[in-house]
Protein backbone atom coordinates (compact mmCIF):
# COMPACT_ATOMS: atom_id res chain seq x y z
CA UNK A 1 0.00 0.00 0.00
CA UNK A 2 2.74 2.38 0.98
CA UNK A 3 4.79 1.60 -2.11
CA UNK A 4 1.73 2.16 -4.27
CA UNK A 5 1.24 5.55 -2.62
CA UNK A 6 4.90 6.36 -3.10
CA UNK A 7 4.61 5.40 -6.75
CA UNK A 8 1.55 7.63 -7.22
CA UNK A 9 3.21 10.59 -5.54
CA UNK A 10 6.32 10.14 -7.64
CA UNK A 11 4.38 9.95 -10.87
CA UNK A 12 1.77 12.54 -9.98
CA UNK A 13 1.79 14.18 -13.45
CA UNK A 14 0.69 10.90 -14.99
CA UNK A 15 -2.01 10.47 -12.34
CA UNK A 16 -3.25 14.02 -12.81
CA UNK A 17 -3.16 13.59 -16.57
CA UNK A 18 -5.19 10.37 -16.45
CA UNK A 19 -7.65 11.93 -14.03
CA UNK A 20 -8.34 15.04 -16.12
CA UNK A 21 -8.29 13.12 -19.40
CA UNK A 22 -10.86 10.65 -18.05
CA UNK A 23 -12.99 13.53 -16.83
CA UNK A 24 -12.92 15.21 -20.25
CA UNK A 25 -13.54 11.99 -22.14
CA UNK A 26 -16.49 11.08 -19.95
CA UNK A 27 -17.88 14.52 -20.67
CA UNK A 28 -17.42 13.93 -24.39
CA UNK A 29 -19.17 10.57 -24.21
CA UNK A 30 -22.08 11.67 -22.09
CA UNK A 31 -22.47 14.72 -24.26
CA UNK A 32 -22.39 12.73 -27.48
CA UNK A 33 -25.13 10.37 -26.43
CA UNK A 34 -28.09 12.06 -27.88
CA UNK A 35 -30.26 11.65 -24.80
CA UNK A 36 -28.08 13.78 -22.60
CA UNK A 37 -28.21 16.80 -24.81
CA UNK A 38 -28.73 18.75 -21.61
CA UNK A 39 -25.00 19.32 -21.65
CA UNK A 40 -25.58 21.95 -24.28
CA UNK A 41 -24.23 25.03 -22.68
CA UNK A 42 -24.90 27.99 -24.81
CA UNK A 43 -28.53 28.07 -23.76
CA UNK A 44 -27.50 28.84 -20.26
CA UNK A 45 -27.61 32.31 -18.95
CA UNK A 46 -23.98 33.34 -18.93
CA UNK A 47 -22.89 32.32 -22.40
CA UNK A 48 -26.27 33.26 -23.84
CA UNK A 49 -26.09 36.85 -22.68
CA UNK A 50 -22.42 36.99 -23.65
CA UNK A 51 -23.14 36.01 -27.23
CA UNK A 52 -26.11 38.34 -27.26
CA UNK A 53 -23.92 41.31 -26.35
CA UNK A 54 -21.34 40.38 -28.94
CA UNK A 55 -23.94 39.87 -31.64
CA UNK A 56 -25.48 43.27 -30.95
CA UNK A 57 -22.12 44.77 -31.88
CA UNK A 58 -21.67 42.54 -34.89
CA UNK A 59 -25.15 43.44 -36.15
CA UNK A 60 -24.08 46.89 -37.21
CA UNK A 61 -21.84 45.41 -39.84
CA UNK A 62 -24.61 43.45 -41.50
CA UNK A 63 -27.38 46.04 -41.32
CA UNK A 64 -27.44 46.82 -45.01
CA UNK A 65 -27.51 43.14 -45.94
CA UNK A 66 -30.35 42.43 -43.50
CA UNK A 67 -32.27 45.41 -44.82
CA UNK A 68 -31.98 44.04 -48.31
CA UNK A 69 -33.16 40.60 -47.23
CA UNK A 70 -36.13 42.07 -45.39
CA UNK A 71 -37.05 44.20 -48.36
CA UNK A 72 -36.91 41.16 -50.61
CA UNK A 73 -39.07 39.17 -48.25
CA UNK A 74 -41.55 42.05 -47.99
CA UNK A 75 -41.79 42.08 -51.74
CA UNK A 76 -42.34 38.35 -51.88
CA UNK A 77 -45.05 38.46 -49.21
CA UNK A 78 -46.78 41.36 -50.91
CA UNK A 79 -46.86 39.46 -54.15
CA UNK A 80 -48.35 36.49 -52.31
CA UNK A 81 -51.08 38.69 -50.91
CA UNK A 82 -51.65 40.11 -54.37
CA UNK A 83 -53.58 43.06 -53.02
CA UNK A 84 -55.17 45.21 -55.71
CA UNK A 85 -54.33 48.90 -55.36
CA UNK A 86 -57.81 49.89 -54.32
CA UNK A 87 -59.86 47.51 -52.39
CA UNK A 88 -62.87 48.47 -50.32
CA UNK A 89 -64.09 45.10 -49.20
CA UNK A 90 -61.86 44.87 -46.16
CA UNK A 91 -64.75 43.46 -44.21
CA UNK A 92 -64.64 40.41 -46.43
CA UNK A 93 -60.97 39.90 -45.83
CA UNK A 94 -61.36 39.98 -42.08
CA UNK A 95 -64.37 37.75 -42.23
CA UNK A 96 -62.37 35.31 -44.35
CA UNK A 97 -59.35 35.26 -42.14
CA UNK A 98 -61.54 34.63 -39.13
CA UNK A 99 -62.87 31.47 -40.69
CA UNK A 100 -59.45 29.88 -41.05
CA UNK A 101 -58.04 27.87 -38.21
CA UNK A 102 -54.47 29.12 -38.04
CA UNK A 103 -52.37 26.03 -37.60
CA UNK A 104 -48.93 27.57 -37.50
CA UNK A 105 -47.72 30.44 -35.37
CA UNK A 106 -44.47 32.19 -36.24
CA UNK A 107 -42.15 33.90 -33.76
CA UNK A 108 -39.29 35.95 -35.21
CA UNK A 109 -35.92 35.43 -33.54
CA UNK A 110 -32.35 36.48 -34.01
CA UNK A 111 -29.45 34.08 -34.46
CA UNK A 112 -26.82 34.87 -31.83
CA UNK A 113 -24.48 31.95 -32.37
CA UNK A 114 -24.09 29.57 -35.28
CA UNK A 115 -21.52 27.28 -36.82
CA UNK A 116 -21.18 25.47 -40.14
CA UNK A 117 -17.87 23.66 -39.95
CA UNK A 118 -18.40 21.01 -37.30
CA UNK A 119 -19.85 17.53 -37.81
CA UNK A 120 -22.67 18.55 -35.43
CA UNK A 121 -23.69 22.16 -35.83
CA UNK A 122 -25.95 24.01 -33.43
CA UNK A 123 -27.65 27.37 -33.57
CA UNK A 124 -28.48 29.68 -30.66
CA UNK A 125 -31.48 32.01 -30.79
CA UNK A 126 -32.43 34.97 -28.63
CA UNK A 127 -35.97 33.76 -27.87
CA UNK A 128 -36.82 31.35 -25.08
CA UNK A 129 -39.49 29.95 -22.83
CA UNK A 130 -40.94 33.33 -21.93
CA UNK A 131 -41.61 33.95 -25.63
CA UNK A 132 -43.48 30.67 -25.93
CA UNK A 133 -40.66 28.66 -27.49
CA UNK A 134 -40.68 24.93 -26.74
CA UNK A 135 -38.45 22.06 -27.86
CA UNK A 136 -39.32 20.42 -31.21
CA UNK A 137 -40.47 23.61 -32.85
CA UNK A 138 -39.10 24.20 -36.34
CA UNK A 139 -36.78 27.04 -37.35
CA UNK A 140 -37.09 28.55 -40.82
CA UNK A 141 -35.64 31.59 -42.51
CA UNK A 142 -36.87 33.67 -45.42
CA UNK A 143 -34.92 31.45 -47.79
CA UNK A 144 -35.74 28.02 -46.38
CA UNK A 145 -35.51 25.45 -43.61
CA UNK A 146 -32.90 26.07 -40.90
CA UNK A 147 -33.34 23.56 -38.06
CA UNK A 148 -35.32 22.54 -34.99
CA UNK A 149 -35.30 23.77 -31.38
CA UNK A 150 -34.00 21.20 -28.90
CA UNK A 151 -33.34 23.05 -25.69
CA UNK A 152 -34.91 26.14 -24.19
CA UNK A 153 -33.95 28.38 -21.30
CA UNK A 154 -35.86 31.42 -20.07
CA UNK A 155 -34.77 33.81 -22.78
CA UNK A 156 -32.61 31.74 -25.15
CA UNK A 157 -32.96 28.56 -27.10
CA UNK A 158 -30.59 26.16 -28.84
CA UNK A 159 -31.51 24.32 -32.00
CA UNK A 160 -30.06 21.60 -34.15
CA UNK A 161 -29.02 23.11 -37.41
CA UNK A 162 -29.90 21.22 -40.59
CA UNK A 163 -26.12 20.84 -40.78
CA UNK A 164 -26.12 18.20 -38.07
CA UNK A 165 -25.67 14.58 -39.01
CA UNK A 166 -27.65 13.48 -35.95
CA UNK A 167 -30.84 14.76 -37.50
CA UNK A 168 -32.82 14.24 -40.71
CA UNK A 169 -36.00 15.80 -42.06
CA UNK A 170 -38.74 14.54 -44.28
CA UNK A 171 -38.45 16.15 -47.70
CA UNK A 172 -40.36 15.80 -50.94
CA UNK A 173 -39.95 16.68 -54.59
CA UNK A 174 -42.21 19.58 -55.33
CA UNK A 175 -43.19 18.50 -58.84
CA UNK A 176 -44.42 14.98 -58.08
CA UNK A 177 -44.66 14.76 -54.27
CA UNK A 178 -42.38 11.74 -53.87
CA UNK A 179 -40.81 11.98 -50.45
CA UNK A 180 -37.56 10.88 -48.86
CA UNK A 181 -35.34 11.90 -45.99
CA UNK A 182 -32.79 14.65 -46.13
CA UNK A 183 -29.57 14.29 -44.16
CA UNK A 184 -26.36 16.27 -44.01
CA UNK A 185 -23.06 14.46 -43.73
CA UNK A 186 -20.67 17.31 -44.28
CA UNK A 187 -18.27 18.78 -44.90
CA UNK A 188 -19.77 21.31 -47.32
CA UNK A 189 -22.35 23.54 -45.64
CA UNK A 190 -24.21 24.09 -48.91
CA UNK A 191 -24.78 20.47 -49.88
CA UNK A 192 -27.01 17.86 -48.19
CA UNK A 193 -28.16 14.51 -49.53
CA UNK A 194 -31.67 13.25 -50.20
CA UNK A 195 -32.33 9.54 -49.73
CA UNK A 196 -35.07 7.03 -50.40
CA UNK A 197 -36.26 8.44 -53.72
CA UNK A 198 -36.97 5.27 -55.77
CA UNK A 199 -35.33 4.82 -59.17
CA UNK A 200 -38.56 4.86 -61.19
CA UNK A 201 -39.23 8.51 -60.31
CA UNK A 202 -37.99 10.86 -62.98
CA UNK A 203 -35.89 13.67 -61.58
CA UNK A 204 -33.63 16.24 -63.13
CA UNK A 205 -31.03 18.73 -61.98
CA UNK A 206 -32.64 21.92 -60.70
CA UNK A 207 -35.80 20.26 -59.34
CA UNK A 208 -37.11 21.93 -56.19
CA UNK A 209 -37.20 20.05 -52.89
CA UNK A 210 -39.55 21.21 -50.11
CA UNK A 211 -40.66 19.98 -46.68
CA UNK A 212 -43.28 17.26 -46.75
CA UNK A 213 -45.28 18.31 -43.69
CA UNK A 214 -45.34 14.74 -42.34
CA UNK A 215 -43.27 15.52 -39.29
CA UNK A 216 -45.57 18.18 -37.75
CA UNK A 217 -42.47 20.31 -37.13
CA UNK A 218 -42.59 22.24 -40.38
CA UNK A 219 -45.54 23.31 -42.48
CA UNK A 220 -45.74 21.62 -45.87
CA UNK A 221 -43.95 23.24 -48.78
CA UNK A 222 -41.18 25.17 -47.07
CA UNK A 223 -38.22 25.47 -49.43
CA UNK A 224 -35.22 23.22 -48.73
CA UNK A 225 -33.15 23.45 -51.89
CA UNK A 226 -32.68 22.26 -55.44
CA UNK A 227 -31.16 19.12 -56.90
CA UNK A 228 -27.53 19.82 -57.69
CA UNK A 229 -26.45 16.37 -58.80
CA UNK A 230 -27.70 12.78 -58.74
CA UNK A 231 -26.53 9.30 -59.56
CA UNK A 232 -27.83 5.73 -59.53
CA UNK A 233 -25.58 3.70 -57.26
CA UNK A 234 -25.20 0.14 -58.59
CA UNK A 235 -27.25 -2.49 -56.75
CA UNK A 236 -29.42 0.05 -54.97
CA UNK A 237 -33.08 0.82 -55.50
CA UNK A 238 -32.74 4.46 -54.63
CA UNK A 239 -31.08 7.46 -56.17
CA UNK A 240 -28.21 9.17 -54.47
CA UNK A 241 -29.08 12.85 -54.73
CA UNK A 242 -27.10 15.95 -53.76
CA UNK A 243 -29.22 18.92 -52.73
CA UNK A 244 -28.00 22.49 -52.97
CA UNK A 245 -29.53 24.04 -49.83
CA UNK A 246 -31.41 27.28 -50.36
CA UNK A 247 -30.55 28.62 -46.90
CA UNK A 248 -27.13 30.19 -46.65
CA UNK A 249 -26.12 28.90 -43.21
CA UNK A 250 -23.01 31.00 -43.12
CA UNK A 251 -25.08 34.13 -43.39
CA UNK A 252 -28.03 33.66 -41.03
CA UNK A 253 -29.27 36.59 -39.01
CA UNK A 254 -33.03 36.53 -38.57
CA UNK A 255 -35.20 33.42 -38.48
CA UNK A 256 -38.75 32.41 -37.61
CA UNK A 257 -39.65 29.75 -35.08
CA UNK A 258 -42.67 27.74 -36.15
CA UNK A 259 -45.16 26.41 -33.67
CA UNK A 260 -47.71 23.87 -34.80
CA UNK A 261 -50.66 24.44 -32.52
CA UNK A 262 -52.11 20.99 -33.24
CA UNK A 263 -48.85 19.16 -32.66
CA UNK A 264 -49.77 17.72 -29.28
CA UNK A 265 -53.10 16.51 -30.59
CA UNK A 266 -51.52 14.85 -33.65
CA UNK A 267 -48.86 13.14 -31.56
CA UNK A 268 -51.38 11.95 -29.01
CA UNK A 269 -53.45 10.46 -31.83
CA UNK A 270 -50.42 8.78 -33.37
CA UNK A 271 -49.41 7.38 -30.01
CA UNK A 272 -52.83 5.88 -29.42
CA UNK A 273 -53.02 4.31 -32.87
CA UNK A 274 -49.45 3.05 -32.45
CA UNK A 275 -50.47 1.28 -29.22
CA UNK A 276 -53.35 -0.47 -30.91
CA UNK A 277 -51.46 -2.04 -33.77
Amino acid at each position, binding site marked *: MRSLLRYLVKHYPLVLFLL*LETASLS*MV*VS*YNSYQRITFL*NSANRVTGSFYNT*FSSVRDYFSLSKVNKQLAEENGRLRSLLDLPAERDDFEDIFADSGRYNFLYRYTPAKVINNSVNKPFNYITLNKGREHGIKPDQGIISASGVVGVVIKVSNSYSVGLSLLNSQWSISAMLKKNSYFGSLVWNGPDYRIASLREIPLHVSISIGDTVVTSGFSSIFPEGIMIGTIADFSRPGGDNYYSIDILLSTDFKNLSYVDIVENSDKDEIEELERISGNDS
Partner: protein
Amino acid sequence: MIHNYVKYTLMFVFLVIVQILILNQVQFSGYINPYMYVLFILLLPVTAPPWLVILASFLIGIVIDVFSNSMGIHAAASVFAGYLRPVVIRFISSHDEEYNEYPGLLQNKFSWFLLYTSIIVLIHHAVLFFLEVFSFADFLITFFRLLLSSIFSVFIIVLSQFIIFRK
Protein backbone atom coordinates in the same frame (compact mmCIF):
# COMPACT_ATOMS: atom_id res chain seq x y z
CA MET B 1 5.97 35.60 -9.40
CA ILE B 2 2.87 37.78 -8.97
CA HIS B 3 3.80 39.51 -12.19
CA ASN B 4 3.74 36.13 -13.94
CA TYR B 5 0.28 35.25 -12.64
CA VAL B 6 -1.12 38.54 -13.88
CA LYS B 7 0.56 38.14 -17.25
CA TYR B 8 -0.72 34.61 -17.82
CA THR B 9 -4.22 35.49 -16.63
CA LEU B 10 -4.37 38.33 -19.15
CA MET B 11 -3.01 36.02 -21.85
CA PHE B 12 -5.66 33.43 -20.97
CA VAL B 13 -8.51 35.92 -21.23
CA PHE B 14 -7.14 37.44 -24.43
CA LEU B 15 -6.67 34.11 -26.19
CA VAL B 16 -10.11 32.81 -25.17
CA ILE B 17 -11.76 35.97 -26.49
CA VAL B 18 -9.81 35.90 -29.76
CA GLN B 19 -10.63 32.22 -30.19
CA ILE B 20 -14.38 32.34 -29.60
CA LEU B 21 -15.16 35.75 -31.04
CA ILE B 22 -12.89 35.81 -34.07
CA LEU B 23 -11.33 32.49 -35.01
CA ASN B 24 -14.41 30.34 -34.35
CA GLN B 25 -16.40 32.63 -36.62
CA VAL B 26 -13.87 32.41 -39.44
CA GLN B 27 -14.44 29.34 -41.52
CA PHE B 28 -12.73 28.44 -44.74
CA SER B 29 -14.37 25.94 -47.07
CA GLY B 30 -15.60 23.70 -44.27
CA TYR B 31 -12.12 22.28 -43.68
CA ILE B 32 -10.07 24.80 -41.80
CA ASN B 33 -10.64 26.12 -38.30
CA PRO B 34 -7.52 27.50 -36.66
CA TYR B 35 -7.11 27.15 -32.89
CA MET B 36 -4.80 29.84 -31.66
CA TYR B 37 -5.47 29.29 -27.95
CA VAL B 38 -2.88 26.46 -27.99
CA LEU B 39 -0.40 29.34 -27.73
CA PHE B 40 -1.29 29.56 -24.03
CA ILE B 41 -0.07 26.00 -23.42
CA LEU B 42 3.04 26.68 -25.52
CA LEU B 43 4.06 29.83 -23.67
CA LEU B 44 3.80 28.60 -20.05
CA PRO B 45 7.24 28.87 -18.41
CA VAL B 46 9.55 25.96 -19.16
CA THR B 47 10.24 25.54 -15.46
CA ALA B 48 6.58 25.42 -14.47
CA PRO B 49 5.77 22.19 -12.59
CA PRO B 50 3.96 19.55 -14.68
CA TRP B 51 0.80 19.68 -12.55
CA LEU B 52 0.45 23.40 -13.22
CA VAL B 53 0.84 22.95 -16.98
CA ILE B 54 -1.72 20.12 -17.08
CA LEU B 55 -4.17 22.01 -14.89
CA ALA B 56 -3.80 25.23 -16.89
CA SER B 57 -4.28 23.32 -20.15
CA PHE B 58 -7.41 21.70 -18.80
CA LEU B 59 -8.73 25.08 -17.70
CA ILE B 60 -8.35 26.79 -21.06
CA GLY B 61 -9.72 23.71 -22.84
CA ILE B 62 -12.85 23.57 -20.72
CA VAL B 63 -13.49 27.31 -21.10
CA ILE B 64 -13.25 27.01 -24.89
CA ASP B 65 -15.58 23.99 -24.67
CA VAL B 66 -18.21 25.89 -22.74
CA PHE B 67 -18.30 28.58 -25.39
CA SER B 68 -18.33 26.30 -28.41
CA ASN B 69 -20.87 23.67 -27.35
CA SER B 70 -18.37 20.84 -27.44
CA MET B 71 -18.19 19.60 -23.84
CA GLY B 72 -14.87 17.92 -23.09
CA ILE B 73 -13.38 17.81 -26.59
CA HIS B 74 -11.06 20.80 -26.26
CA ALA B 75 -10.31 19.93 -22.64
CA ALA B 76 -9.20 16.41 -23.60
CA ALA B 77 -7.03 17.68 -26.44
CA SER B 78 -5.44 20.40 -24.29
CA VAL B 79 -4.71 18.11 -21.35
CA PHE B 80 -3.07 15.68 -23.76
CA ALA B 81 -0.92 18.41 -25.28
CA GLY B 82 -0.09 19.84 -21.82
CA TYR B 83 0.97 16.44 -20.51
CA LEU B 84 3.26 15.76 -23.47
CA ARG B 85 4.76 19.27 -23.48
CA PRO B 86 7.75 18.53 -21.15
CA VAL B 87 8.51 15.39 -23.18
CA VAL B 88 8.48 17.39 -26.42
CA ILE B 89 10.71 20.11 -24.95
CA ARG B 90 13.20 17.52 -23.71
CA PHE B 91 13.09 15.76 -27.06
CA ILE B 92 13.83 18.75 -29.28
CA SER B 93 16.31 20.65 -27.07
CA SER B 94 19.95 19.65 -27.00
CA HIS B 95 21.67 19.43 -23.62
CA ASP B 96 24.44 21.93 -24.13
CA GLU B 97 22.00 24.71 -24.91
CA GLU B 98 20.76 26.46 -21.84
CA TYR B 99 17.04 26.52 -21.28
CA ASN B 100 15.23 29.76 -21.59
CA GLU B 101 12.53 30.33 -19.01
CA TYR B 102 10.05 31.72 -21.53
CA PRO B 103 9.63 29.51 -24.60
CA GLY B 104 8.80 32.34 -27.03
CA LEU B 105 10.07 33.02 -30.51
CA LEU B 106 12.42 35.86 -29.51
CA GLN B 107 14.06 33.83 -26.77
CA ASN B 108 14.83 30.82 -28.95
CA LYS B 109 15.95 29.95 -32.44
CA PHE B 110 13.25 30.25 -35.10
CA SER B 111 13.66 26.61 -36.15
CA TRP B 112 13.29 25.48 -32.53
CA PHE B 113 10.09 27.46 -31.99
CA LEU B 114 8.62 26.31 -35.30
CA LEU B 115 9.31 22.65 -34.49
CA TYR B 116 8.02 23.05 -30.91
CA THR B 117 4.80 24.73 -32.09
CA SER B 118 4.24 22.25 -34.92
CA ILE B 119 4.58 19.17 -32.70
CA ILE B 120 2.33 20.47 -29.91
CA VAL B 121 -0.30 21.80 -32.34
CA LEU B 122 -0.33 18.49 -34.25
CA ILE B 123 -0.77 16.50 -31.02
CA HIS B 124 -3.55 18.83 -29.89
CA HIS B 125 -5.38 18.89 -33.24
CA ALA B 126 -5.10 15.13 -33.74
CA VAL B 127 -6.91 14.45 -30.45
CA LEU B 128 -9.37 17.29 -31.11
CA PHE B 129 -10.44 16.32 -34.61
CA PHE B 130 -10.74 12.60 -33.99
CA LEU B 131 -12.72 13.20 -30.81
CA GLU B 132 -14.95 15.58 -32.70
CA VAL B 133 -15.99 13.07 -35.38
CA PHE B 134 -15.76 10.29 -32.75
CA SER B 135 -14.96 7.59 -35.30
CA PHE B 136 -12.15 6.47 -37.53
CA ALA B 137 -14.51 6.19 -40.49
CA ASP B 138 -13.55 8.71 -43.18
CA PHE B 139 -10.08 8.64 -41.68
CA LEU B 140 -8.54 10.42 -44.65
CA ILE B 141 -11.02 13.29 -44.67
CA THR B 142 -10.50 13.88 -40.95
CA PHE B 143 -6.75 13.60 -41.39
CA PHE B 144 -6.84 16.13 -44.20
CA ARG B 145 -8.90 18.56 -42.09
CA LEU B 146 -6.56 18.15 -39.16
CA LEU B 147 -3.48 18.71 -41.29
CA LEU B 148 -4.84 21.84 -42.99
CA SER B 149 -6.06 23.31 -39.70
CA SER B 150 -2.72 22.54 -38.04
CA ILE B 151 -0.79 24.35 -40.75
CA PHE B 152 -3.07 27.31 -40.35
CA SER B 153 -2.88 27.32 -36.54
CA VAL B 154 0.93 27.09 -36.61
CA PHE B 155 1.02 29.95 -39.10
CA ILE B 156 -1.17 32.17 -36.92
CA ILE B 157 0.74 31.29 -33.73
CA VAL B 158 4.16 31.97 -35.24
CA LEU B 159 2.91 35.18 -36.80
CA SER B 160 1.39 36.35 -33.49
CA GLN B 161 4.80 35.93 -31.84
CA PHE B 162 6.03 38.89 -33.85
CA ILE B 163 3.25 41.07 -32.45
CA ILE B 164 2.03 39.99 -28.99
CA PHE B 165 3.32 38.07 -25.96
CA ARG B 166 6.89 38.51 -27.11
CA LYS B 167 8.31 38.53 -23.60
